[in-house]
Structures are given as C-alpha cells and as structure tokens.
C-alpha cells in the first residue's frame, strides 16, 4: 500500500510540474489536438476532487468513531486520491483554457487559484505522509485545501454561469430605460442583442474575443475583425454570420441557440445602415429612415404601454369597495395606478354612486356614464376628475349647458356625446380643452353643416358624426308566421312584423299578394284546412318585402288506426305508420329522422281505420318532402280508395302530380286530394314514387324517392 501511495504522490508531482511549466510558458507551447480533447474533460473531472475533499472533511468530523491507526490510513488514501485528481483536473483545465474563449479577468483568477490549490494539496499530502506527530496541523492542512477548493470552484462557476449566478434569483431586475431621450439602440436594438447574442459575447465569456455588451468594445470587434461597418450592413461581418445557412459552422447564433427572426435581422441591418449609432434618439433620425419604421413600432408601444402616471394608486380595498354589480372600477392594467369606471343598468343608477367616485378623483382616467340618467347639473361632479382622459356621455339626458364644468379636466382627450341634445353653442367650453382630440357628435343637436363649420374652426379636433349615408331604398324583411308547426282546430293563424307601421297583405288561395293586392291582415285568421299562405309586408319609404310562402297545416280528423301495407325503405322507416299521424312535421333537410318515411322500391300504401262512427271526409292532404337535389321527388300519382271493410276497397279518386322541371330549393310540400263527401270506415292511400328521374337530373333514369311525414283528413 505504501508503494501505491508513493506512486500516486509522484504522479501528482509529475502533473504538477508539467502544469506549472505550461502555465509559465503558455505563449510558447503548442498543445496537440488530442490533448485539447482531454481538456474538455475538465468540467466532468472537477466534480471528483470536490467529492473526495468534502468526504475528507466529513471524516474529520466523525474521527472519534474510528480507531486512530485505521483512521490515519483511510485519511492517507483519500488525501492521495484527492491530490491526484486535483492536479489532473488542474492540468486538464489549463488545456481547456487554450481551446475556449473566456473573458480574461475571471479566467486568470481561476487559473492561478487552481494551480495554487494543486500545489497546496500536494504539500499537505507530503506533510501528512511525513513522520510529524502534530495531528492538529495535518488536519488543519486538509481544511485549508477544502477552503481553497471552494474558492477555486466558485471562480470556475463564474466562467460557465456568469457573475452572480447564485444570488440572481433574489435580485429584481432594474427597469431598463425610462427616459424619453433614450436612444433607438437602447430601446429597440439592444433588447434584440440582449436576447440572442449577449449570452456568449459578454465581458466574461467573450466568444471569438467579441464583446457586444460594451458599445466601445463592440465597435472594436473580435479576433477576426470589426463586427460591423457603420452604414454598410452588406459588408458587416456580424450580418454575414447571421445570414449564413444554419448548418454552416460560422452561422450565428450557433445551431441550437435561439435564432434571430426576420424582423430582428431587418432591424439590425437597418440600424447598421443608418450609421450604427449607439446614442441617437428616435426623434433625431429622418422619419423616412427604414430604421425609424422598424424600430418606431417597438418604441411607441414601449411608451404607450408605460404611460407614466405620477399619482399614487388607490388602495385595493377602496377599489373593491367601489365595485358593485352596477359600477365597475378597475385599474387599466396590472400595476397601473390609473383607474377606469363604468356604470351599468340605468334603473340602479343614483347620483350618490357617482359622488362616491370622488374618493378616486386623482386616479380616474376613463369614465363611462353611457345611458345613465344624468343631467347637466350633475356634470359639476366630474370637475374633480382632473386626470380624466376619456369620457363617455352617450345617450344621457344632457342638453350641454353643464359642459362648462369640464373645463378643469384639462387632460380630456376623447368625449362621446352621441345621442344627447348638445348644440354648437353648448359644446363651446369643450373646444378650448388643451388636449382634446376627438369629439363624438352623432345623433345630437348638431347637424352636418354645423359640424363642417366646427371642423373648419377647430382643425385640431376630430369631430365624428356618422359614416352612414341614407341614400338607397331598402327591402323590408318578410312578415313572420307566429305559430309554427301544425295548428290545432282552436288555433288561429297569426302573422307579425317587427317593424312598426308596416302593412301585411296575404292570400290563402295561391294568388300573389303585393303592395295593392291581397287581403290586408288585421288580426289572427281561423282556418278550416291546410293552406298555402303567401304574405308580404309593405311600408312607405321601403320596398315591399319578399314573399313569405309557407304551408300552414291544420290538424284534421284522427283515425283510430293507421297501418302500412307496404314497407318503407330500411333506412327511412321513421316510427312506422305512427309517424303519419303523430302531428310532427319533418325538417326540410334532415330526412333521416323519425318524422319521415321514405319509399323507393315500392309504392307507399297505407290503410286507415276510422272506427264505427267515421267522420265525413272532404279532403285528404299528404305532406311530403320536395328535395330534388337529393333524389326526393313528389309522387307521380296519388290514389285514395274507400271501403267498409279492410279487404274491399274501391278507388275514389286519382290525383296526377306534375313532375318538377329542374332543380329547386328543397321545401316541404303538400298534395290536397278532394273527395266527394264520403264516410267510409276504411281508406287506402297510395302514392307512387317516380320510376325514372327526368333527363335534366344528374341521376337520370334511376328510381326516385318519395318521402312522407304526415297525412291529414278533413
């Protein structure tokens, strides 16, 4: 064991001397490439001595647990290992310092202290292995190694993580720039460099020897020359590197790091092209300069979002107290002292609730009293709000005589008075407000001629009226059928129109009503069968509405029983025969729902039983779907059969239906079939689907569908 300890001790000395030699003659030695690879092991290797030395200190603390002789041995072995790894780490570290670009100051500190540590630990080892009996001194040496190790470790961490890494989380970053005179570089360009470049090109870690954080060093450039040529972005090295393909070794920022966006590149180019000035504020540039266009946006939004209000914020308690369901009070954004207040629901408005805002008279910058019942005399309450910028008084009861009260609110920029009775006379006091930019005057006592006069007299104020010109005549909307679905015998057909003053004319016989023809609608109508309703609404100054065309279904006699004699198609079986009398109409487009029965392969044949006391029937109405685009056609023929038994029917009537002549909008149609007064107990209804779709149809020659949802009996 003694031998191996001696071997490691000598090995340490060898590396120690080698390291010291290289350290002294740094400038004259050339390190072979493979050794530089070894250097890169430094960051991994350094953790081993740290562990061992920490272990040594721990061992010292618990030494009473060991027998003295054993403890000495353990300590000797550990200390030897610590020394070997420390010297090796120092050696590798020195090699690494050749291959990488680090800031000079902190690197030098780390190098010197590292080498010192290596020598120290070697001497402590030699002393420990010596025959000296001063145990306390030996142990103190070990502690000294520990202390120096901590220091060296720290100087090293500064190289990789930067200054203040450990305490950084506890420090608040100082707001960057606050002065209006700050330069374009500081406000727009530097933030980009800060995000994408500074992490490698700073005082500590000057990759390529380029330091960008300090303007004068940035101007000087790095090891390969200047980074930019003022006025010439094309011949600037920095731009050249940025524009290289990502895969290229010299591309900046390197692959894997956050890349510059197109906008950021344009901005950097523009800054260089405009002279790469570090101190010039935005105002000093020519407004047509590309840099102004690009950076202007960033800078303006920077200022816009940080309007500096100098007044103190209101307390959160006060703000909360002022909030009621009918009065909202809140800061315009997080951390802003400026407040906005809005009032809602005029039924709950009281003057007291406006007075209470005096408690925030300093902070209030925006106030909306839109539609609240305030009068001119109430406006004196507003004179206290000296920082008010935006005031909304739309649709209040103002005549304007109280607007003079606002003359102290010299920060007012925008006032909305739409829907009030203000006149050119009464708004006079507002026009001398120094900061007023916009005045909304639509729907007030001020007409357009007067507005044009105001625009001439006060060119700095934007008077907003309306952009809408009432020139064309418009068409009214259709009248509405109030009771949709199937009417019961008690229901009345009811029409309405939401526009006041319209006349509705209608017909139930298929003739078209217009502004002069048709029956004028005065009130609900009693029906005695399903009808086709057509109605139109007219009003002077408007074109008559389009025609409302719809079928109004009326419930008829209910049979005791109804059955299908032929099956509906598998896919469209609805709820069987029950669908036909359940009083539910099918939707136009949705034929896969239970109201509809679909037939294609066979005719629709249904048998109806009215029981022992059958009513007298005059009419049968079949309600069907007309959706020719979906191959759903009206039937070609409908037959009604009657009989006193289920097995003995005679044909009562046949109705031929004309075939559609082209595509048309889908609708729900109905086929009325008149009967001579008949009172059979049983009826049979037959409808034949179209056998061959017509030539104009996309599915010509194929079988068509027949869809039925209801059958009515009158």
């Amino acid at each position: 064991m003694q031998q191996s300890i001696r071997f490691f001790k000598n090995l340490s000395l060898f590396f120690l001397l080698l390291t010291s030699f290289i350290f002294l003659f740094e400038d004259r030695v050339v390190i072979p490439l493979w050794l530089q690879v070894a250097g890169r092991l430094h960051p991994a290797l350094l953790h081993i001595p740290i562990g061992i030395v920490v272990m040594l200190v721990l061992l010292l603390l618990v030494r009473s647990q060991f027998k003295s002789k054993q403890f000495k041995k353990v300590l000797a072995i550990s200390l030897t290992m610590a020394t070997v790894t420390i010297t090796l780490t120092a050696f590798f570290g020195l090699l690494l310092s050749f291959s990488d670009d680090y800031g000079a100051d902190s690197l030098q500190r780390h190098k010197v202290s590292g080498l010192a540590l290596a020598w120290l630990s070697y001497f402590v080892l030699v002393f420990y292995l010596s025959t000296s009996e001063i145990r306390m001194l030996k142990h103190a040496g070990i502690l000294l190694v520990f202390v120096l190790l901590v220091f060296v470790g720290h100087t090293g961490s500064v190289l990789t993580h930067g200054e203040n890494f450990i305490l950084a989380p506890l420090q608040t970053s100082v707001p960057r720039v606050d002065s209006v005179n700050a330069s374009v570089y500081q406000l727009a360009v530097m933030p980009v460099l800060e995000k994408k470049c500074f992490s490698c090109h700073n005082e500590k870690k000057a990759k390529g020897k380029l330091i960008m954080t300090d303007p004068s060093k940035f101007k000087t450039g790095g090891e390969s020359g200047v980074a930019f040529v003022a006025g010439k972005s094309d011949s600037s090295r920095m731009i050249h590197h940025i524009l290289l393909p990502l895969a290229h070794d010299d591309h900046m920022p390197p692959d894997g790091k956050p890349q510059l966006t197109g906008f950021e590149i344009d901005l950097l180019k523009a800054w260089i092209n405009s002279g790469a000035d570090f101190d010039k504020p935005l105002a000093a540039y020519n407004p047509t300069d590309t840099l102004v266009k690009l950076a202007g946006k960033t800078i303006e939004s920077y200022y816009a979002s940080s309007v500096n209000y100098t007044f103190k914020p209101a307390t959160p308690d006060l703000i909360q107290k002022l909030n009621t369901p009918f009065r909202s009070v809140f800061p315009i954004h997080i951390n802003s002292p400026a407040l906005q207040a809005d009032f809602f629901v005029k039924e709950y408005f009281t003057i007291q609730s406006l007075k209470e805002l005096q408690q925030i008279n300093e902070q209030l910058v925006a106030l909306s009293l839109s539609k609240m019942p305030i009068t001119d005399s109430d406006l004196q309450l507003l004179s206290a709000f000296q920082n008010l910028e935006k005031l909304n008084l739309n649709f209040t009861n103002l005549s304007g005589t109280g607007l003079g009260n606002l003359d102290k609110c010299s920060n007012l920029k925008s006032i909305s008075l739409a829907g009030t009775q203000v006149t050119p006379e009464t708004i006079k006091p507002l026009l001398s407000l120094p900061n007023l930019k916009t005045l909304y005057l639509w729907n007030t006592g001020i007409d357009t001629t007067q507005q044009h006069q105001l625009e001439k007299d006060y060119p700095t104020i934007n008077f907003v009226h309306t952009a809408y010109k009432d020139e064309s005549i418009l068409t009214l909307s259709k009248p509405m059928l109030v009771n949709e679905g199937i009417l019961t015998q008690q229901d009345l057909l009811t029409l309405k129109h939401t526009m006041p003053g319209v006349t509705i004319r209608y017909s139930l016989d298929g003739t078209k009503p217009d502004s002069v023809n048709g029956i004028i609608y005065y009130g609900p109508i009693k029906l005695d069968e399903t009808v086709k309703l057509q109605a139109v609404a007219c009003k002077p100054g408007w074109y008559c509405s389009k025609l409302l065309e719809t079928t109004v279904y009326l419930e008829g006699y209910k049979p005791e029983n109804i059955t299908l004699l032929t099956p509906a198609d598998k896919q469209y079986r609805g709820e069987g025969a029950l669908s036909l009398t359940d009083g539910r109409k099918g939707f136009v487009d949705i034929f896969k729902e239970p109201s509809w029965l679909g037939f294609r392969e066979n005719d629709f044949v249904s048998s109806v039983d009215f029981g022992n006391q059958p009513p007298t029937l005059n009419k049968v109405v079949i309600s069907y779907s007309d959706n020719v685009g979906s191959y759903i056609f009206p039937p070609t023929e409908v037959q009604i059969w009657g009989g006193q038994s289920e097995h003995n029917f005679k044909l009562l009537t046949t109705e031929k239906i004309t075939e559609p002549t082209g595509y048309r909008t889908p609708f729900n149609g109905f086929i009325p079939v008149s009967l001579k007064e008949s009172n059979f107990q049983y009826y049979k209804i037959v409808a034949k689907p179209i056998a061959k779709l017509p030539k104009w149809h996309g599915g010509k020659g194929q079988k068509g569908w027949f869809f039925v949802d209801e059958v009515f009996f009158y």
Partner: protein
Amino acid sequence: MSKEFMDHRKHVTRRYFMGKLSLGVGSVALGSLLIPDLFSNSESPVASTGLPHFAPKAKRIIYLFQNGAPSQLESFDYKPLLNKMTGQELPASIRMGQRLTGMTSGQSKFPLVGSYFKFNQHGNSGAWVSEMFPNISKVVDDICFIKTMHTEAINHDPALTFMQTGAQQGNRPSMGSWLSYGLGSENKNLPAFCVLLSRGRGNGQGVYSKLWTNGFLDSVHQGVQFSSSEERVLYLKDPEGRDRADRRNMLDQLSKLNDLNYKEFGDPEIQARVQQYEMAYRMQTAVPELTDLSKEPDNIIKMYGSDCLVPGTYAANCLLARKLSEAGVRFVQLYHQGWDQHGNMVGEMPLQAQDTDRATAALIMDLKQRGLLDETLVIWGTEFGRTNYCQGDLTIKNYGRDHHPRCFTMWMAGGGVKAGTTYGETDEFGYNIASNPVHVNDFHATVLHLLGLNHEQLTFKHLGRRYRLTDVGGKVISGLMA
C-alpha cells in the same frame, strides 16, 4: 367530483395538514432549484388577475365568424391571373404535391377558375373587394385585411375548433373563455362571453357548443348562447304570479342552503352556481333593455337592414352584438353558417353575401359613431380558405371550390389595428403564401396582445402543465397593429 369532496375533508385533519406542510416546504425548495426566478418578483409569469398585463388597445371583441369558409377568391383576395387561366390545369410547380381533401383527391384534373364576380378598388386604401360586398367596400379604410392566414387542418370541424380554441381536438377553452378568464367581466350583470348563431342560405356546416366551452377553466367563463327566438335569453321572465321581491327572497334562501352545502363539501362549482343565480337575477333587469330593438331609431334599422328586427338573423345578431358590446360584454361571438360552397358558388355565395354585407358594415359604422370602435376589436374570420381550382364540373355559369388551408383572408377593424391596410400577400395563383404568413397561433397572440394580454403569460395549469391559447407557438404580428 368525489375527489374534491375527499380533498375537502382532508383539509381539516392535523395529519394531512402536517403532511401537506412538509411536502409544501420541500416542493418550494425543489421548485426554487428548478425554476431560478421562483422567488424573484420581476417578470415572473403572471397568473390571471382579471386585468390586462399592459395597457390594452381594445377592451372588447366582436368576432363575426363566417362558418363554412367563404371563398377568399370571390371576396377579398383578387387574383386576375385566375380569370385569364380559367380552365387551365393548376401547375404542379404551384401545387407542389400538397395535400387535398377526400372530396377532390379523386379528381383527375384541377382546372383553375377565376372569380365569377367583379372586383373593384375602394376607399383611400384602394383595397380590392368583390362586387358582392358593396357595403363592406364603403368601410375598407377602417379595415386591416390579412391575406395570409394559414391553418393546419383541412376539414371543417378540426379547423373550426383550432381557430376558436387553439387546438384541433376540442377540449380546450375557447378564445372567449380565455378572455373572460384573463380580463374578467366589465359588466357584472351580463356574461363576459356571449354567443349568437345564425344561418344563411348556402350549404352549411354545423357549430357545436364545444366551440364556446370553458374547457378546463372555471365554468363561469363558458360562452352563453343566446336563443335565436324572440326571447333571446330563455326563462328570464318571472313566472306569472311571482314578482321580483318573491324572486329575491327565494334566491336569498336558496343561497343559504347552498352555503351550507359549500361549507360541508367545498365544491367550487356550488359557488359558481350561486354566482350564476345572482347574475341571472340581475340579467332580468339588464337583458330586456338590451334585446328590445323597438327603441332603435329608424336610421339604425335602415343601416343594418330590416332583417335586424327578425330574431335569429345575422343582421339582428350584429345589432345585438353592438348593444352587448356597448354594455361591456368582453367577447361577443357570432357564427353565421352556410359558406361551404363546394359547388354552386355562383348561386349560393351572393345569397350569403346579401345576408351579411350590410349588417357587417353597419356594425363598424355604428361602433364608430358612438366612439366605441377605438376600444372594440371587430374580427371577420373563418376556419380556412378555398382552392383556386374547381371542384366538380367547371361550366361557364358555375363552379365550386374545395377546402384550402394554405392561405385565406380574414380582417380586423377597430381597437389598435392598422386601419386601411393589407397585411401579407399570396402568390398570383392564390394558392401559396408569398410573404408575411400569419399562423392561427400568431393571430391569437396578436389578438390577445391588442387586449393587453401577453399570450405567453395568460396560462392555466391543468393536468400538470400550463396551457395557453397559443399552446407552444404564436408570435405577435406587429404589422397588424397601429
């Protein structure tokens, strides 16, 4: 649900408390190791406080969603080359083998087709608008067109869900819910997020309540769908024989009972429910005034068109949207269906345009004359665009277009947008983006930015990670902002 109950019970035991404490201290320590700025008070991610992160440009949004994908080539993206080359094959150099839907992947030919409708330039900005939109043409100087929107999905439902929630799968909060969460309600008598539906006369696609879901956010952020019937909010009237005082008394008693239950179980949904009852009570006063259109002056009715008096139409929804927005509703979402013109472009699209053009322009003018356009962001948008080639038969009189996610047009007006401009350019075939693409995530990031929200900071922790509307993407497009 039962997990919450159990958690609540655990709150009260000493053992649980101590256990939680030690775990808590440990995780704080660990957290500070993993997240270096955990203890710093600067620029740490801001959880929602119901306030903008910075000064907002707009306070409210009205989102006019044209569901089904109106063709950009027949509306705002003018491509005269397509008219010259109508009937010729789409060059492979343009298509570059990009994917097709199942509806046209079987086509052997992809004949280009130009717009049947004429385009003209309008306003000081000289924006090209098709003749189908004569009223929008009048307000182009208030509009910022985005010609280069692009999305990841090629079919309606995923694209629509992506556009509205930032994910294609449909379990995330929708945009309106994020805003309600991020900004809170301005008017506590109305929901912060309202949804209005209408249906046009063209081929339509469905919309579903997952598009206005609160997802994993608190259910108070869910979109409230207004009815298309005359009674826009159902069951708001007191039943016959009951007056407001009865109702108040009933709610007070009910809230006591709910309170007892909350103390026992601690289920946050109980409190959400109580809040909703209270809001419904206040809505009984606030809503009738909003939905009563009879007091609107004649010139407003003319401006929006007489359809605005017919409940459930797009025009009526636009007018109601204005009134809701005026009353402080953060996010009014309209959906207008019927824009899916795979065929019959010439027959259907004019009908769709007729139903929407006048009211859309009226909304902008109306907000402007009230001084509200500055603080309201109006968005006209859709889920994707349509192809430059014809789907189905190309005839002199008619044609159709398939889905096209690679480029489409949307526009914004009002609060903070660069009015009277066009952002981005598509190639002359209207197939690919030539410059300045805007991804759906970018669009969301920009909209949030206009509302004063940093899209990277508006997060909600769910299932172990923080979610954003923009997921892991999105950049604010400064070119869209004034």
